[in-house]
């Protein structure tokens, strides 16, 4: 029960008024980030990173992770109320949540989304805490071929499960993956599909490159620049070393949103409400999966 002891130790570190206040602020900001479509958890964390410059490491990490968790729930709000998923992982919520909102049950839908989000994340965190040591050795055997197989399965199930014309799903998926491929190939470092046009290389978060330039310019602020550089290094691995897998995952999700919104529209048009009873388990399943996925990354 070493993991259990570590978990309790974590709680003793976290259960102070200051940390709880930081959590609160982080969650509120995270909900805002989650509500904005197109601004996801990772982006929100990247944008709000400067807020943590003056904090001690524990508060900073607590705040950033709370922004992330807040975004996990925030995405459901627009899914339910506007039929627009605020996040890639809340796409499934539009299937059931929006029809419920149309019947005037938005409050129930939001409560269900929040509850399932809470249970899903609790289970995911507990699972990760207790199973991570066991999974770690197994996970290391997951190489590029296995990742490719998993993503292939994902995309195949998008095609198979979608109710739109199959070729339209294929088109939006390949288009998303192709857009992700523009720029530098992460395996060989060769440029591709840029047609010698530098603007096509700049598809990352806009501030990243510029910020370093600015900080070199007023180099009096060494400490801060060093910290920004550090945070950049910390930020990179999320996308970098796994090759095409990171961006492809993001854009695959984006492609899926397009397809799935059509699907959700279709449900809404038909007034398809048979899903209402199946709401909770399905959502818990989807969101729990999302969280497990986020956790293992």
């Amino acid at each position, binding site marked *: 029960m070493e993991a259990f002891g570590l978990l309790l130790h974590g709680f003793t570190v976290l259960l102070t008024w200051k940390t709880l206040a930081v959590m609160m602020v982080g969650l509120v900001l995270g909900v805002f980030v989650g509500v904005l479509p197109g601004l996801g958890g990772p982006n929100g964390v990247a944008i709000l990173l400067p807020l943590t410059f003056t904090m001690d490491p524990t508060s900073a990490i607590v705040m950033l992770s709370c922004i992330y968790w807040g975004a996990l729930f925030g995405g459901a709000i627009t899914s339910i109320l506007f039929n627009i998923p605020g996040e890639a992982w809340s796409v499934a919520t539009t299937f059931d949540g929006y029809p419920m909102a149309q019947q*005037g049950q938005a409050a129930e839908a939001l409560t269900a989304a929040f509850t399932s989000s809470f249970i899903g994340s609790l289970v995911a965190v507990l699972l990760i805490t207790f199973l991570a040591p066991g999974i770690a050795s197994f996970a290391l055997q997951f190489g590029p071929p296995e990742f490719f197989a998993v993503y292939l399965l994902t995309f195949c199930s998008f095609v198979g499960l979608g109710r739109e014309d199959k070729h339209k799903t294929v*088109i939006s998926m390949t288009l998303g993956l*192709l857009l992700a491929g523009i720029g530098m190939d992460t395996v*060989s470092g060769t440029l591709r*599909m840029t047609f010698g046009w530098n603007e096509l290389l700049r598809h990352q978060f806009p*501030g990243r490159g*510029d*910020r370093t330039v600015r900080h070199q310019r007023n180099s009096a602020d060494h400490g801060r620049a060093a910290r920004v550089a550090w945070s950049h290094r910390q930020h990179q691995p999320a996308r970098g070393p796994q090759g095409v897998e990171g961006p492809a995952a993001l854009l695959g999700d984006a492609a899926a949103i397009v397809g799935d919104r059509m699907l959700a529209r279709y449900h809404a048009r038909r007034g398809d409400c048979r899903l209402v009873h199946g709401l909770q388990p399905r959502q818990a399943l989807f969101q729990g999966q999302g969280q497990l996925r986020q956790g293992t990354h």
Partner: protein
Amino acid sequence: MATPETEIVVEDPTAPSDNSPSVVSTRTVDIVVSLLLLALAALLCFDNWRTGIAWAADGPQAGYFPFYLGLILAAASLYALITSLVTGAGATQTFLTRDQLRRVMQVFIPTLLFCLLTQWLGLYVASFLLIAGFMRIIGRIALWKSMLTAFLFAIIMFVTFDIAFDVIMPKGPLEAAFGY
């Protein structure tokens, strides 16, 4: 679970009317989009073929994966093209009515102008013009309210991006006059 008692109906007084004349049918749009996608797929496949689609000693060359994606895209759009040409599905279905087109253009043209103006005037002046113009002309909101909102918005954006987060946005003569 409570039974639904109220149904929310959102009324939009300026909504496009249903009997407005059709501009283009779904079939035409399908065909045009398929052709565009086919052209895009051909272009990307060609570029990837030029980059290299073979398997080098150290792994796939840069164009390997996107090349095959392009092939799949081409196949899917070809399928879409052939189905719309052969079956004529959606020939009588209206894709866009004139009223709807007008509405889309009311947003599209200002946005296009905004993008162009950003190149010359910088992001902040252009967004001031966009917001003020939108509120005044399309929203018919009082002039001072539009100007004030747009001004505050531009200032908040400037403080957020340029000062707080050090993100350098395109700037024009006005910002230069203030020394930024």
